[in-house]
């Protein structure tokens, strides 16, 4: 099963021969790199390992997460361990979910030229340009939905001629949506109040003063919701 097939890759231009089943990240380590930057979760969630590559002989520039991409023969690889995104600060209690807030914090989104480079480069295959369009219109709910799987790796912004920091725009939209636009959960607020009013205090007290034997009995007999 563990075939020893090797492929040639080029890390920052230097050639290495590595087992073909490795991810780009593991291939760098195999080649001898002790990673510090450019490596976080190793599972496709944190966006630390944004990477750009081109296959030898091809023109197209590709982007990926190094931890989620298998090496290919002839890959020319450069990592992008840091990208200077613009993150504006704001007070989430004071802002309002209106179009003006985008105009105020991230006006460059209105300079989008519609080139689609962001969408094309997204390591999560999101329609980035579309979510920026939603943000321009103040449609934060859609912007939040469309951008939800963003890992903020910053590749889109590195490709943008208008200098937009897409992940930060989306972050703002999601917080606005979560805080102001999503429906409130009445049952949650009720329960918080019930607890604050001491509604469960005596029950909890008697429960926590039972012996382990008694609790074991209760646990083993508890009914389980279907």
């Amino acid at each position, binding site marked *: 099963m563990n075939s020893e097939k090797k492929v040639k890759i080029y890390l920052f231009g230097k050639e290495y021969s590595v087992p073909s089943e490795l991810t780009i990240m*593991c291939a760098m380590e195999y080649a001898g790199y*002790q990673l510090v930057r450019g490596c976080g*979760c190793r599972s*496709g969630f944190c966006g630390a390992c944004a990477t750009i590559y081109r296959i030898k002989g091809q023109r197209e520039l590709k982007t990926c997460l190094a931890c989620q991409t298998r090496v290919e023969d002839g890959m020319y690889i450069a990592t992008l361990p840091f990208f200077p995104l613009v993150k504006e600060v704001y007070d989430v209690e004071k802002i309002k979910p209106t179009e003006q807030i985008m105009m105020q914090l991230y006006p460059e989104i209105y300079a989008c030229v519609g080139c689609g480079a962001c969408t094309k480069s997204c390591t999560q295959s999101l329609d980035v340009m579309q979510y920026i369009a939603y943000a321009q219109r103040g449609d934060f709910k859609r912007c939040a939905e469309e951008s939800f799987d963003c890992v903020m790796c910053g590749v889109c912004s590195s490709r943008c001629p208008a200098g937009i920091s897409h992940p930060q725009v989306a972050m703002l939209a999601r917080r606005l949506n*979560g805080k102001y636009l999503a429906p409130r959960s009445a049952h949650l607020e009720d329960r918080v109040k019930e607890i604050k009013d001491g509604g469960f205090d005596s029950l909890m007290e008697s429960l926590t003063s039972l012996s382990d034997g008694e609790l074991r009995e209760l646990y083993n007999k508890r009914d389980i919701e279907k």
Partner: protein
Amino acid sequence: MYSDEFKESLCAVEASREKNLAYEPPRMTAEEKEALLSEYHPDFKMNEFDTLKVGKNKGSRAPKELCRMLQAHSRVRDGADLSNIKYDVDVLVIGGGGAGAAAAIEANSAGASVMIVTKLRIGDANTMMAEGGIQAADKPGDSPCIHFLDAYGGGHFAAKRELLSKLVTEAPDALLWLSNLGVEFDKTPDGEMITTHGGGTSRKRMHAAKDYSGAEIMRTLRDEVFNREIPVVDFTSAVEIILDEKGRAAGAVLMNMETGEITAARAKTVIIATGGAGRVHYQGFPTSNHYGATADGLVLGYRAGAKLLYAETLQYHPTGAAYPQQIYGSLVTEKVRSLGAKLVNAAGEVFVHPLETRDVAAAAIIRECGARRLGVDAGNTKAVWLDTPMIEMLGGSGTIEKRIPAMMRMFANFGIDIRKEPILVYPTLHYQNGGLDISARCEVTGVENLFAAGEVVGGIHGKNRLMGNSLLDIIVFGRTAGACAAEAAKKTVSERLTLSHVEKFEKELAAAKIETDDVSPMLLPNYTGKKSMF
């Protein structure tokens, strides 16, 4: 697409799918569970443990790898220049995961000057990776008391009761706090939280944000930390806690991860929020954890005089990815089973209830692949099937894309469509059940002005944690740690700093005749030059 070597077993799984879908496997009795665990769970493999010879836990059992780290030399055993104080704050938070961020936000709210130092970037942390969800008893028909019972029993009746009752009682408020910060939970159009079961829950109280639950929480907390302009010093690890002459925590020795430069941070109170230990690869297991999960906080605390609780218990998540090899050890969220996928052996038989607690399910898989010889050879390991197409048969087509997009993407990246094909899984090292012993105010037992929150803590969950209770504990206890550390900072007048405890510890090592070249904390694993598939 699977290659031909899986054909036979894959056909068996497909042929039995209808039947398996309808079949509800029995839940094990308490006795059956005990027998299974003691025979197959890694925590019970006695030859994998040693007895500690120094420190507060002297005489007790801990995993061999942990013993080595706890009894290794300090990275600054030759001393460090404590006059080179680069940072001076009220509250120093060590670790930029969910617990650290929540603590920093609350310390900031309480008016303290607070800063975060973290090994990688803020958010490169286990919190970012949590997929499944967060528990809270916020539905009618559920209550904090039932939540308590589920967690206490699931943790084998070993949790510190005052910690667990705080966890469940403050759970709904934790969710409301997150909602008010803008965290987007899955809800119905009228605002009802969409909740499911997790292993060991008796009520459906798992709240999620698709299968990016931790990412959604972490990125929101991180954004809030930035909005409050709380200083975050990244790529900087704490390598030793600094005490003052009264023996109270008063800062930390820091190491720049890129340049190796050693500096010091002085603080009135210190919060350890360094998370877990998956990258220690106990017993050679792969792990679901992030790159910096190396048990540093246990080492930092232990040398400063803290006590550990349940350091001998670790959580092996039953469903780590076993194939394709590129994602070996990565987590397949428990939500896959919550949504209806069952565990099936090489012969196409369902062999365990999909919602047993994690330790039980993991032990059952290990038994299936070992003694029973009903595992599938997945290359790095034997494995069993997790029959994901069942999810769409139950919930309708589109369920997978909507509810577990991250899982779908992870496998699709390597050519497997989990809507149509089942996946191969084997237990992966997932969570550090044990850790620093704390009070309900997050004070570390034995060291004044030292606080701890998150996965580095032991005792909240007993000896096995239920899914969804960890994201919860980092919020509940993270917030408490921040507030209490800020309060204690107000009452603290700085004294002279010292590392005499480190010298003392070195002497104890010598007295116990421990000879080693190891230094700790570990900081990062070393995979260089190897064909590691971790």
